[in-house]
């Protein structure tokens, strides 16, 4: 039985851990790039290893459509099919169907949809989702959940949460390879703490290998987002991985890690690459801008990746507007960025310098000190002091001055102008 999570270091709720999977031993926190159709746009498995990717996501819906999960199984599983030696994770297929397909609907039986091939009505049940994922053979498989957008309100959310709990039992029963594939349950419940709590406890009772926090990253306000993550991580077991699905932006990953999450996935780094945007410590660099045409610097002078070592912004500017190689090179850099972020999170927690890392990260992203309020609030719960990264308006000087009290001797020069 090759699966376990071993926490190697902590800072308050944040953990640096070793996650042992059948195909690879990973370091968390980690980011998982999305390789929808058994490939990550234009990158070879060789390059992905060099970049430092540890786990890749495959989309069950797409892979079942083409080439078909039975074919993948016949040929020895997805690892062998795409020649990826490290870890794989497959989603359940449910979310993709609801978001991609016309007239997809959810009933107690499963997700009903129109076949994209011939328009016939079809049904994805929890059993079928697990069966497909068993065929594909990923190290981690996801339970079919009833996922609702967080922007929806009303009884639908409660219905979805309870159904998710009923479906997890069907998934567990249908799972044919529990010794080599690890089934994660997904916590639903919208933004309602009561529902989330019921769901967490229900899933924990089933003693699953790992837990995902689902139904977020869909347009809800950031303050609600972090609160749900914080509540779930507080209620989920310490010795199991916590996976926040659909996250995302580097800032979100740093905050969620501070709150005790371990794993993330998102199309953002690769998708934004295809629109000509590169991830840099300051935020985003848009290569399509005219100013890039004559800029001879690399994307990020501090980045050690192959793209930053070999290509200038000027050259990339030419490519991104005209040639698929532009998106390939930007994807390479962006995934390197995310892999380095993962490594920095793991190492800084392990080496007892996580708060310094967080402060450094925020300082570079928000040089004017305009850190969003929701990050403040989340960091307070995470027990990380970020006041020195923040604008002078947050310090007491202005208020004191207005009251006629001179407190300048107490203020370090960096805090007040």
């Amino acid at each position: 039985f090759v699966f376990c999570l071993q926490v190697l270091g902590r800072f308050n709720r944040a953990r640096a851990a070793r996650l042992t999977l059948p195909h690879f031993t990973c370091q968390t926190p980690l980011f998982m790039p999305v390789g929808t159709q058994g490939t990550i746009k234009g990158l070879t498995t060789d390059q992905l290893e060099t970049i430092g990717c540890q786990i890749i996501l495959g989309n069950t819906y797409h892979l079942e459509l083409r080439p078909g999960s039975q074919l993948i199984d016949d040929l020895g599983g997805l690892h062998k099919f795409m020649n990826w030696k490290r870890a794989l994770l497959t989603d359940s297929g449910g979310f993709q169907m609801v978001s991609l397909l016309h007239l997809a609907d959810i009933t107690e039986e499963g997700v009903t949809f129109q076949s994209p091939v011939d328009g016939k009505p079809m049904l994805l049940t929890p059993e079928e989702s697990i069966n497909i994922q068993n065929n594909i053979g990923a190290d981690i498989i996801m339970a079919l959940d009833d996922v609702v957008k967080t922007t929806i309100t009303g009884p639908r959310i409660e219905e979805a949460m309870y159904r998710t709990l009923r479906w997890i039992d069907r998934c567990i029963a249908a799972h044919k390879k529990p010794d080599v594939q690890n089934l994660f349950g997904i916590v639903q419940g919208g933004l309602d703490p009561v529902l989330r709590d019921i769901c967490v406890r229900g899933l924990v009772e089933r003693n699953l290998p790992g837990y995902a926090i689902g139904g977020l990253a869909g347009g809800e306000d950031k303050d609600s987002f972090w609160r749900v993550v914080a509540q779930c991580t507080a209620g989920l077991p310490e010795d199991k991985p916590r996976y926040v699905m659909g996250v995302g932006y580097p800032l979100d990953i740093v905050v969620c890690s501070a709150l005790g999450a371990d794993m993330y996935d998102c199309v953002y780094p690769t998708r934004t690459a295809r629109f000509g945007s590169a991830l840099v410590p300051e935020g985003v660099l848009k290569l399509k801008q005219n100013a890039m045409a004559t800029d001879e610097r690399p994307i990020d002078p501090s980045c050690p990746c192959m793209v930053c070592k070999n290509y200038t912004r000027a050259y990339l500017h030419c490519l991104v507007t005209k040639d698929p190689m532009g998106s390939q090179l930007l994807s390479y850099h962006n995934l390197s960025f995310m892999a380095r972020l993962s490594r920095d999170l793991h190492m800084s927690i392990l080496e007892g310098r996580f708060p310094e890392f967080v402060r450094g990260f925020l300082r570079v992203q928000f040089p004017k000190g305009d850190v969003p309020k929701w990050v403040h609030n989340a960091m307070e719960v995470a027990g990380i002091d970020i006041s020195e990264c923040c604008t002078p308006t947050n310090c007491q000087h202005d208020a004191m001055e207005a009251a006629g009290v001179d407190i300048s001797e107490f203020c370090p020069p960096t805090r007040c102008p």
Partner: protein
Amino acid sequence: MELISCLQPNLWASLADEVPAWVNEKRNKTSVERTLRWLDACIALDAASGRNSLGVVVGGSSIEQRKLCATEVSKRNVSGFWIGGFGLGESVEERCSLLNAVTDCLPLEKPRIVSRLGLPEEVLEGVASGIDLFDSTYIYQLTMGGFALIFPIDMVEREMQNGVFDSSAGDSAKINLRATTYRKDMSRIVDGCTCFTCQNHTRAYLNHLINVHEMLAQILLEIHNTHHYLRFFRSIREAIKAGEFDIFWKQFVENRRSQIAAAAM
């Protein structure tokens, strides 16, 4: 020439009036005269006076004009020759005699390039006529069409392959990996090929990538096709060095003929 001086290439071809083989005599003659005038103009504007230049030889399908042009270009201060006007639809027989007419008039010690001749048979004909460098979009077209080169490279491989081939999806020179016959084919594009693609991936995976329109398909195919094609050129060089080019060429053509004959049966 301003463009050339900005780009700073190692070699550059002079601006030329290339015409296809079927233009009339008058047009053809004009193209030769114009091409020579432009060559002189380019050299005059070149800071290095033609040291890195390739003089373009035109002349259409007229042996006389070809010889004239080749002789005239040879007199200029060029470091090599770009033989233009081929690969535009002329017949194979025509091309051979025209190419020979040109190369007969060119100095032996300067390189000759021909453009748009990319098929292995065309390359062999060009080599036989004394061509040193070839450029074409052959590999690109193959890759974009989902084709992978599989023709046997050296003489040993050809003997082994003789008469044994399933031509249901392509011919003995190339296979179309889009075809359903490859859906579960776990073999390499070419057994024993040392390229990245053949060392790491299977026909089945490439079939999938092509059919789902993933960029990685073209990347992997281009790697293999380029590798395979360059190996072909290496075999040609080795055959020439061993004094066996004629046998190499003959065997290649015969091998192709017997494959096509076997497929037709």
